[in-house]
Structures are given as C-alpha cells and as structure tokens.
C-alpha cells in the first residue's frame, strides 16, 4: 500500500508540470523608473508607470503599450494598441502602430511621418476590449448540470463516509447543532480569507499561494455541504422509518440536500442569500472542526475562566 500511496503522490505532483509551458502565458514588460533603450522584439505588453524609455526604430513590441506615467519616445513598431493615460508619448516619424491609439490623458507629441493603422479614440470614446460572451445555458442543461453536481457530491459523501466517517460526522454535528456559531465563523473565515487571498494575489509572487488558498476554501465549503448532507441523510432515514447504512444515508442525504439547495438557489434574490448562508454554515463547521479532525465543543459559562 505504501507503493500505491507514493504513486498517488507522484501522479498528483505531475500536475505541477502544468506550470512548465512555452506559450499561453501573459507576458508584460514593466518600467517604473530609470532610463531604458528598448531594442529587438518584445513579446507581450509594455506597461510604463514611470521613467524614461525609447523604443528604438528596430524594436518591435508584439503586444500593446500602456503609458500611465513617464516619458516614451516611440520610434519602432507596436503591433497592438497604444493607450496613453498619463505622461508624455512622442511618436517619431519612424513609429508604426499596428492597432488603435487610445488617448485618455497625458500629452501626445505626434510626428507627420508616424503611421497609425487603427483608429484614434479620445476621452470617453475608448472602447472596451471584446470579452467572450457567456453562452446562455438552457433549462435542460442547467437541470442536467445540477443533477450531475448532486450525484457527484453524493458519491463523494459516500466515499468520505466509508473512509473518513468520524470526520464527516463531526462536521455534520457542528453544522447542525451549532448552526449560528458555524454560520458566524464561516462568514468571518470567508470574508477574511477571500480578502487576504485577493491581497496576496496583488503581490504577483504569491499568486500560486492565493490560488491554492481559494481551492482550499472551496474544498472546505464542499466538505461542509457533505457534512450537512450526511446529517440530512440520517434525518431522512429517521423520518421515513427506514434506517439506511451510513454510506447509503450519506449518498442519499447529500444528493437530496444539494438538489434542494440548487433549487432554492434559483429563486431570485432570496436564493442567492440562502446559498451564502448555507455555504457559510458549511465553511464554519469545517473551520471549527479543523476539517473534521477534532470535535467542536462550544464554550460554556461554567467552563469559562473567572
């Protein structure tokens, strides 16, 4: 079994290789200060937040140029759009712009020989880039997806109950018996966690940690739902007077719970709020029980220090 665990670890680690790729990455050159002479081909975009730069006549920028502050003497070629929001942009006679010139601020010093192949937009006329439209899903598609989601979570609940029964029971107990505490903690963890993760993402270096954090947060919510679903399964068994085995009860309970939750979530206004509350209860229960590893015992007045 030790070998199989190692193989599972190896297969999971192989997913990290997705970070190694030649293309498909967004590339940007950022200039914040100092003097720069840019020559040759530059992949991606160029963002200037300060400093003094010259794009030499032989230089070619493959992406777009965004000038927020600083001075840029453009003598070469830009294949994408050029957006001027602040600072000074000089278009030399040899400058070639493949896309549009968007002027939202700053000072432009054009030259007669410079070539702009696209359009020139000024002030509020700057168009937003085309965003891919989300395909509208049909009712049948939505129902199928909801059903598959419920089925999948039901199977996960059955699997977890089979191999991690005590943890699931602890989460379910915390969520059902201490709903208010779980919801409060869940909201706190959700708000603080998301804020922290978004802030981390701004540092660029911590983007992987931020993504991992979001994944763990999502996993905690789902784990909480499974805990609640398992409790619902026991309740269904008791009400229907047909006690099921723990695995079957977890499957049925989670299936019904998630289906009902998705049905309620489709109600305008109230549905969304309900979804947030249930997610908070689940997240809170998982946080209080440390992913089901310890039983949550609420503090009582007698247990508190004087």
């Amino acid at each position: 079994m030790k070998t199989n665990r190692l193989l599972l670890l190896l297969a999971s680690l192989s997913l990290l290789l997705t970070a190694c790729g030649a293309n498909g990455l967004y590339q940007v050159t950022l200039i914040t200060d100092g003097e720069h002479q840019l020559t040759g081909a530059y992949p991606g975009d160029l963002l200037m937040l300060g400093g003094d730069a010259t794009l030499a006549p032989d230089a070619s920028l493959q992406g777009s140029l965004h000038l927020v502050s600083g001075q840029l003497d453009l003598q070469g070629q830009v294949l994408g759009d050029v957006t001027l929001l602040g600072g000074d942009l000089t278009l030399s006679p040899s400058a070639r712009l493949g896309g549009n010139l968007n002027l939202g601020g700053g000072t432009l010093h054009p030259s007669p020989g410079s070539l702009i192949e696209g359009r020139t937009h000024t002030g509020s006329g700057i168009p937003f880039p085309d965003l891919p439209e989300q395909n509208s899903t049909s009712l049948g598609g939505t129902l199928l997806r909801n059903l598959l989601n419920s089925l999948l979570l039901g199977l996960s609940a059955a699997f977890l109950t089979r191999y991690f029964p005590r943890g699931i029971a602890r989460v379910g107990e915390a969520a059902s018996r201490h709903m208010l505490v779980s919801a409060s903690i869940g909201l706190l963890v959700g708000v603080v966690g998301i804020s922290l993760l978004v802030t981390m993402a701004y540092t660029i270096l911590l983007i992987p940690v931020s993504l991992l954090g979001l994944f763990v947060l999502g996993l905690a919510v789902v784990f909480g739902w499974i805990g609640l679903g398992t409790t619902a399964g026991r309740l269904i068994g008791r009400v229907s007077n047909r006690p099921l085995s723990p695995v079957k009860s977890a499957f049925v309970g989670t299936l019904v719970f998630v289906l009902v939750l998705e049905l309620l979530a489709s109600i305008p206004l109230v549905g969304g709020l309900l979804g947030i509350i249930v997610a908070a209860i689940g997240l809170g229960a998982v946080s209080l029980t440390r992913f089901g590893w310890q039983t949550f015992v609420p503090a009582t007045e007698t247990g508190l220090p004087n």
Partner: protein
Amino acid sequence: MKSLLAYLWKLPLCGLAFFIGMILGGILLPLLGFTPPEMPAGTDTGTVTLWFLLGSMLLAVFLAQISGHLQVRWLARWGILSLFTWIFLAVGMVLESFLFMTTGAVSSIENSLFTMLNFLAPTLFLSGMVTSLFRPASSATACPGFSPQNLKDWLWRITLALLTYPLIYFAFGLLVQPFISDFYSTGQYELTIPTWGQMIPLQLARSLLFLLASLPVIGCWGGSRQAVWLSLGLTIFVCTGFMAVITAYWFPWQLRLFHGLELLADALLYAAALIWLFSHHSSGKTPPQLTR
C-alpha cells in the same frame, strides 16, 4: 536507497524503448504510404519529444506496478500492457481530439489513423521493456478471474460499465467547464466544441474500448482490490491526462491544470467503478512483490 536505485535505472531504459519505437514508427509509416500531419501551431519536434520521453518514463513507473501484479506469462503480460497503453494513450486520445481539436494530427481520418499508428510501435516497445524488467515475484500462471459468474451477471455489469464512463466524463467535464470553456468557444489553440450528438456516441465508443482494455488487467490481477483500483486509475490518468494533456506544453496552464485534475478524477472514479463491477472480493490476498 539501494532498492530505489535498482528501480530507477530501469526507467531511462523504458524511456529509451519508447523513443526507439517513435523513431521506428516515424520511419515505417511514410513507407506504408502515410503522410505525417503538421505539428500543432507553436510547437517543435525536439520539445515534444523531450516531453514524451519524460512522460514515457513516468508511464513506465505505473505500468511496472501493473506488470508486477499480473498473474500471467511474459507474452500475455506484454499483450495486456500493450493493448491497455495503446487504447488509453493513442486510440482514446485520438478519438477525443478528433472532435475537440482542429489540429493537423487529427484534422482528417487519415491523419488520425497516422497518429494512432504512430503510437503503436512506442507502446509495444515500452510495454515489452516494462514486462521484461518488472516481473511478478510469484510464478503463478492462472488468472484469478472476475466476480460475475453467469451471463446475466456479465450483461448487467457490462451495460453499467459502458454507461459509467460517459457519466463520469460529463460530470467532471461540466465541473471544470467554467474554467476552460472560453478556450473552446473562442477557438484558441486549435480547439473547438462538438455537439452533444457527436459527444455521446463518441464517449460510448471510448467506454467500450476502455472496458476491453481494462478487463484483462482486472481479471489477471493478483493482489488486493484497493491496489488494483489505484494502479489502474493512476495508469489511466498518466495515459489520458499526463501524456495527452500535461505534455501539451503549448496549451496555457489553466487548460492543462483543470483538464489534468478532471482526468485524474475521471480515471480514479472510473477505475473504482470497474473494480466494483468486475474484480474478485479477494482483498485479503497478499500482493506479490516486484522482482528486481
């Protein structure tokens, strides 16, 4: 450490066998009248080969585990491993890509056939090397068999198994869809979206092939059910996920990561379903050790 080193030196040999198979396939297929399709945009042969070399060594790690537990003779083990690897790695991948991609390798039936056959020699060479280097310790030559005992048992289990793969495929596919659908809907990286009418028969066909390739492994496995589940599931993942998606280095990381996670979940759940349906309840059996 000593046993690890004894294990590790075999992996480059397996990678080399795969590499020789690729060269041989590249020479033989044009002689048979096939024209090699164009490489995907933004790729070069050298980098693709390096990724495949890495992938083949990783695949050898997982195939070794299967080879060490199959209670059959050398030739049968070679056949089982070759069929398994070729179906999951080449045939299944090409069938899937035929509908989801417009790239040269699968742009026509002839090109798709070329791609499938191009993997045949590497698969045979790799499986042969793994079979030779990783043998089961016990000398038993009889397959433990399957759990279904009569025709009725077989029929309902096969029907269920055939339906299980598409269900798992669509369930996890829909889960990752929000993260990757833009790449398909905007036609980036030579990707496209087929219709449901195309996808359902295709997944049923793949399900049939996958079942045929997996059954010999399950039937001849000498070890616990948990071990066969993990070995089968992880090897399927390496064939379908690692070799087909993660090695596609020209794709953006989001596409490779989410598809990778999807295919890992697909493979583990599908293997679990197959084990539940067809494997003997002989969990008490001690798995044989690999001979080195």
